[in-house]
């Protein structure tokens, strides 16, 4: 998958493979777009293959270089009633309801400047197209970091991470984008540039717009710049594994860890399949626990961890290579070369182990294998179903996923499809039911994007 723009051909072209739509962007509009961003930054035809999602090819892809250009592109699209799909690194492009009309991909990768990093203030302002790992490298050079560790950091962009509310294992201690984003600049559906929040870590002036845009999947505006809180890099960090003979015991051990004086920065629970995916051998389950801080603090905590988990059958903590960190958030997904489906379930921490176990059981009953991982301390569970050749009956998969969802809801949580083939996504709602709150969300959407051009139909509550 490519992430950046490629040299383009100058004419609107037919898509290469069969069954896909022809480009419907009228030539005059394409010309106007080229006038805004430069001819080389409007893609069409076969250049669009990296931007195919759920079998839909976009009508064109545009790559502005500045906020003004973004605004101009959005205005043009609004004028033409052309749907827009903001695009960072594409790592979450397949999340959501497949669009009915593919529309215009609005690539943010050319907005990749770090606008300001003030170490004394522990804040950074960067454009949306900055690759997360590059941002981290720049911050690390000054002894700081953005405490956000979603998967695919070498491809995901800052804007995309925010729009998808992507997170990783260290969210256990450091929270998610919601706890880090202090200011955001977006281009709204009418082409205006709107700022919410500010550049200071405490700010209650006006409504908390940054919160609105996090996880909104580009449906309310195109994020072009963000200001975030930083942290000093810890002196040291270590990851250990604690193996269990029963998944249930691992769940109980998590409760004990949360009630103890330990301050882990990650508490992940993996089953045997997911463990293998990150290079650890642990059957049937293991806890992967991270600590950071001064060396003496880490040493003390690892020893203490051993005492805390022992009554629950936890074996002595063993060191785990640092490389395991990067695979943790996607352990379940990565367990299978191509999963049949992936679901994320948001449940109470005390129900994590049960959710994993019941989910595995209900799939197994239908002859389906699964892999499970969870940020156990915060209740975020990911379950992946193994593709079994002709067992990949969409109706069957949908039933299993529906059961998983029902179990999550029974515990006061919710579950949404992270990834699944088109057939499954049409058999089962991608997003869980937002209930009456969904109506409020719809009203917000209707107010700020009355024409419904930003990722129409992609999101929850029918947005």
């Amino acid at each position: 998958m490519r992430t950046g723009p490629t040299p383009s051909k100058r004419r609107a072209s037919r898509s290469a493979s069969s069954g896909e739509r022809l480009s419907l962007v009228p030539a005059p509009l394409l010309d106007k777009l080229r006038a805004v961003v430069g001819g080389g930054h409007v893609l069409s035809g076969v250049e669009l293959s990296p931007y195919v999602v759920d079998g839909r090819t976009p009508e064109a892809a545009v790559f502005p270089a500045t906020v003004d250009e973004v605004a101009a592109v959005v205005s043009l699209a609004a004028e033409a009633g052309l749907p827009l799909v903001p695009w960072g690194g594409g790592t979450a492009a397949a999340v959501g309801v497949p669009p009915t009309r593919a529309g215009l991909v609005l690539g943010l990768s050319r907005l990749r400047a770090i606008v300001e990093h003030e170490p004394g203030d522990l804040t950074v302002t960067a454009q949306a197209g900055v690759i997360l790992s590059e941002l981290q490298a720049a911050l690390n050079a000054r002894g700081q970091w953005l405490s956000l560790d979603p998967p695919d950091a070498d491809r995901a962009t800052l804007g995309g991470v925010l729009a998808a509310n992507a997170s990783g294992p260290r969210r256990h201690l450091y929270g998610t984008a919601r706890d880090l984003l202090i200011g955001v600049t977006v281009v709204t559906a009418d082409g205006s540039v709107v700022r919410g929040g500010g550049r200071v870590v405490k700010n209650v002036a006006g409504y908390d717009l940054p919160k609105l845009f996090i996880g909104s999947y580009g449906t309310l505006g195109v994020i072009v710049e963000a200001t975030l809180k930083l942290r000093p890099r810890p002196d040291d960090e270590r990851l250990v594994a604690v193996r269990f003979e029963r998944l249930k015991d691992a769940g109980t051990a998590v409760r004990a860890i949360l009630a103890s004086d330990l301050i882990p920065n990650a508490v992940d629970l993996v089953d045997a399949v997911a463990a293998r995916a990150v290079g650890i051998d642990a059957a049937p389950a293991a806890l992967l626990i991270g600590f950071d801080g001064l060396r003496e603090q880490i040493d003390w905590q690892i020893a203490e961890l051993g005492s805390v988990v022992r009554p629950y059958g936890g074996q002595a903590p063993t060191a785990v290579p640092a490389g395991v960190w990067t695979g943790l958030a996607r352990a379940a997904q990565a367990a299978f070369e191509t999963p049949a489906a992936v679901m994320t379930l948001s449940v109470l921490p005390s129900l994590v182990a049960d959710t994993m176990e019941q989910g595995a059981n209900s799939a197994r009953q239908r002859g389906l294998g699964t892999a499970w991982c969870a940020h156990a301390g915060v209740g975020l569970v990911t379950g992946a179903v193994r593709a079994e050749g002709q067992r990949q009956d969409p109706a069957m998969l949908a039933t299993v996923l529906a059961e998983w969802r029902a179990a999550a809801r029974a515990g006061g949580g919710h579950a949404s499809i992270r990834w699944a083939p088109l057939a499954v996504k049409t058999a089962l709602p991608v997003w869980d039911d937002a209930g009456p709150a969904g109506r409020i969300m719809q009203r917000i959407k209707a107010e700020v994007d009355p024409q419904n051009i930003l990722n129409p139909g992609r999101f929850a509550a029918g947005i």
Partner: protein
Amino acid sequence: MTSMSSERKSALRRELETIVGVGGVLSDPEELLVYESDGLTLFRALADFVVFPRSADDVAAVVKLANRERVPFVARGAGTGLSGGCLPAEGGLVLSLMRMNRVLEVDYDNHIAVVEPGLVNLHLSWAVGPRGYYYAPDPSSQQACTIGGNIANNSGGPHTLKYGVTVNHVLGLEVVMPDGEIVWLGGRTRDALGYDLTGLFVGSEGTFGIATKIVVRIMRKPQAVKTVLAVFDRVEHASAAVSAIIARGLVPAAVEMIDQLTIEAVEDAFGCGYPRDAAAALLIELDGLAVGMEAQAERIVAACRDSGAREVRTAADEAERQLLWKGRKSAFGAYGRVSPAYMVMDGVIPRTRLPYVLGRVNEIVAAHGLRVGNVFHAGDGNLHPNILYDPRKPGEEARVVEAGAAIMKVCAEVGGSISGEHGIGLEKSDFMPFIFSAADLAFMQKVKVAFNPTGLCNPGKVFPTKKSCVEAGPVAYRPHAIEAQGLAQRF
């Protein structure tokens, strides 16, 4: 007050009484009088009724009645707010939530509690304290302010440097919408489904509806705490020390700064052990594991010394620690000993601009012939210049307001904000254009319309507005100082 005929008033009163009971409605002028202000006595507005709902259903019924009668309404907690946020700016109903004050449920395994909005912030920590938990957002008024009020203002406090503000500790809200519908935003799990409406509601200053149940995160009490007091002969040194601490890789739980005038007032009130002749003092708190705390404290001491501290001391025991904090938390009230009134300002600036801004604040206040005491959350640049004045002296109030506006402009100039935690409310709605463009404000208005299309829910707040019956003495309308100077726009 709205202009309501006495027949209509009586009829409304009777209807309200059928909802909340006979003891739950106030309409006598003397009783309404005590509800005309919150903690900021500069502004007053009289309600037509104050009602005391006991449940979400009561709140919903009152709100529906208000909608039917086209009467504005606003919720009120303990009334300790400092921006006039719970004033009935256009008259109508004040819903006091003080009788909805229970801890409904605590789930220690999952570290959450469900509480009613009238619960006093500190009482929540007391309730979960015996099991070793606490509720982290700790505004200085936490002995009196309520969780509901904290939700409205996204309240902070000294420990938010490390632990975040209210919104970072709220998972879900049961809300009575401005049209009277009861809706749950968010829930008990950590990830929102769809838009983060909980995050949006927190800090919306009561303009999006009324929260009737709040799901909060509770946290384990830290294993150890260390409180350090550093004393400086120059304010600039104190500000520099703050940046130096962070540069050494430390995020203390709190870094608070107080100036000399404040120290004197606090020492008069409580004798907390702050040295009276210091130009500024930094109160720094570390918390976390006992292991390693000494090493971290040493780094802090070194950072302070390197920045020119003349004295650094650590609280010897819990009693001394409480006393040091008591001084800081009661500072606002202690000003009452040195001045009949004071105006608490609330601004935020990038930490690194602290010395410059402090200097400007002192200049501005002196230029207006007033005095100022500075107390603030230096760790995150949230400053509270407290302008001391005597309301009985003619012209003094106007100068206070002018000085306040000038200070807000400075905050905006250096890339800061006009409110760190007290909210915009009534007090600062005219200053919004200092930091937000017309497009920004228009977008926020659209979001508000999605929640509150009729505008009946807490009108006159956050956005500059013309209409209100907030008192101004004998004259009903007087252009605000900054408006007269052409510095503010109107909606």
